[in-house]
């Protein structure tokens, strides 16, 4: 049994495949409101996992990641409402525009380290937010872009859920491939010791920028997916509050595990739903939870589970 659990959570494909099968059949047993919550979880999971490429793998704490989520959402919304573009084209264009935005902004940001990197990403993020808020002629300001047309094929919540699931699977698969590639390993090396990595002949800035652009592109996918589901986009999608949401999710789920942010997204939205149905003070509960996680469970939820399992594995080894 323990062996099975270890294998399930190990690096092999067994865990993700079983999770996918579970997610395919889950909507058959739960109500529509829960399915729609799961779509939100999926969009947040893509967004947070993309941020974790920067934080967990690259060691870069971005405070403006919502900018690329928002650019994706607005690209999708504007293409459908203003240009009448087909749905799939808008979904594909979103990450491309987000990547372009990330390239322009990241070009400046990757020159800085630590807190200065965080502050510059925050500044750029708020600039993008402010543009979306103030450019009434194009983005309709704080009214947002509402009633975005939608392909009839995906009209029902359940159908959209399956579409989102496909997007999630492809995005996570893509990101996993990237972080496991030599590029991903280099990224981790530069997180652990940037100076030494540079001495090895690695162009640290270029690698950081590539990570920034990749993370931005996947954030854009998350944004476009949520925009499609929500039918409306607002400037708050780009606000730093949205960026901190991804940070919180990453920490809750655990930034040292690839699926940590996904687990965190499920936890956050699930707890939000449960707590708010009993209590008005969700952010109080979240604040306490966050503080406890930072203080006592640094690896987040996934880190805690892995730690317990390793302890179990070690004990069994001793017994032999």
């Amino acid at each position, binding site marked *: 049994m323990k062996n099975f659990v270890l294998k399930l959570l190990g690096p092999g494909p067994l865990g993700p495949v079983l999770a996918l099968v579970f997610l395919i059949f889950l909507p058959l047993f739960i109500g529509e409101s829960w399915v729609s919550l799961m779509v939100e979880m999926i969009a947040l999971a893509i967004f947070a996992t993309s941020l974790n490429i920067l934080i967990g793998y690259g060691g870069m704490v971005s405070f403006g990641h919502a900018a690329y989520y928002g650019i994706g959402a607005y690209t999708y919304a504007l293409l459908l409402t203003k240009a009448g573009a087909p749905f799939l084209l808008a979904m594909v264009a979103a990450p491309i525009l987000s990547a372009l935005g990330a390239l322009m902004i990241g070009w400046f940001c990757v020159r800085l380290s630590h807190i200065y990197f*965080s502050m510059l990403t925050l*500044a750029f993020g708020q600039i993008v937010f402010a543009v979306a808020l*103030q450019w009434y002629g194009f983005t309709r300001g704080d009214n947002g872009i509402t009633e975005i047309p939608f392909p009839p094929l995906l009209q029902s919540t359940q159908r959209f859920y399956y579409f989102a699931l496909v997007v999630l699977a492809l995005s996570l698969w893509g990101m996993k491939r990237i972080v496991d590639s030599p590029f991903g390993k280099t990224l981790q090396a530069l997180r652990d010791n940037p100076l030494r990595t540079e001495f090895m002949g690695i162009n640290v800035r270029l690698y950081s920028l590539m990570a920034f652009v990749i993370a931005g592109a996947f954030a854009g996918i998350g944004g476009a997916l949520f925009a499609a589901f929500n039918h409306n986009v607002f400037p708050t999608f780009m606000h730093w509050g949205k960026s901190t949401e991804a940070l919180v999710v990453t920490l809750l789920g655990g*930034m040292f595990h690839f699926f940590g942010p996904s687990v965190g997204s499920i936890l956050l939205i699930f707890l939000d739903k449960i707590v708010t149905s009993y209590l008005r*003070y969700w952010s109080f509960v979240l604040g306490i939870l966050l503080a406890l996680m930072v*203080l006592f469970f640094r690896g987040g939820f996934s880190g805690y589970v892995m730690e317990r399992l390793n302890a179990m594995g070690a004990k069994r080894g001793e017994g032999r």
Partner: protein
Amino acid sequence: MDFSAFFMQFLSGLSQGMLMVIIASGLSLVFGTMNILNFAHGSFYMLGAYFCFAAVTLLPQISGNFWIGLILGPLAVAGIGGLIERNVLRRIYSRHLLDQLLLTYAFVLIFDDVVKMIWGIDFQSVRMPAVLSGKLDILNRSLPYYDLFLILMGPLILVGLYLLLQKTRIGRMMRATASDAEMMLALGGNVRALFNRVFILGVWLGGMGGALISPQAAISPGMAVSIIVESFIVVVIGGLGSFWGTLLGAFIFGQFNAFGILFLPRMAIIFPFVLMALVLIIRPWGLLGRPED
């Protein structure tokens, strides 16, 4: 635009800047000494305003209530800050940047709801003290007395802070710790106790800013989040941890706001961030800060 309008706008920007310098110097002091960027600073500012409001409403209705609130409010906030430092923050000084930011952010979330539990979600307001409620006529225009009061309070508190840091024993120890905490520890300085005092002082400054703004602004749970980003702008422009840099940053921020709203009202919220980004790109250590080794 004639000179008097220009001058009035300058004064209005100056009063905003002076308020910002009080708040932001607390943030900068804590960062400069303890190397912690405290997200919860905005919450302490908010608590300062609420505590001042509480003093005005709860105390028997006498005329000096605002002044009592102005003195007691920030002190109470500083006490809470001291407790948080001693029991919670202390555990994470050697941790990763993300942990520090998220832990202090957790307090933003917590205090946000705590004030909602106590005071509700409606906007609250503190009545302007009678002495300061009039307007002053200069150059055929009028400036609220309260703006003048803020313009005076900024330098007053700043001078006090400067004297404390330069002339007193504890101030010298704070500066020594800021420049080299390890050496301070090796010399037998009690860095732990010092960190606690620095944090209390920083929080007091934030609370003071909140108490000072309370008669002029609507007091609401949202005020923590907006001020913290503005404080970041100010300290980044001036240079993180730089005393005079914070003053310069706050001055620039106030003027940008005042004239930005006048000339390009819709761009006004973008300017400060553009300025912040430009400073970070050209001089990451800020206008008056010193580059890291």
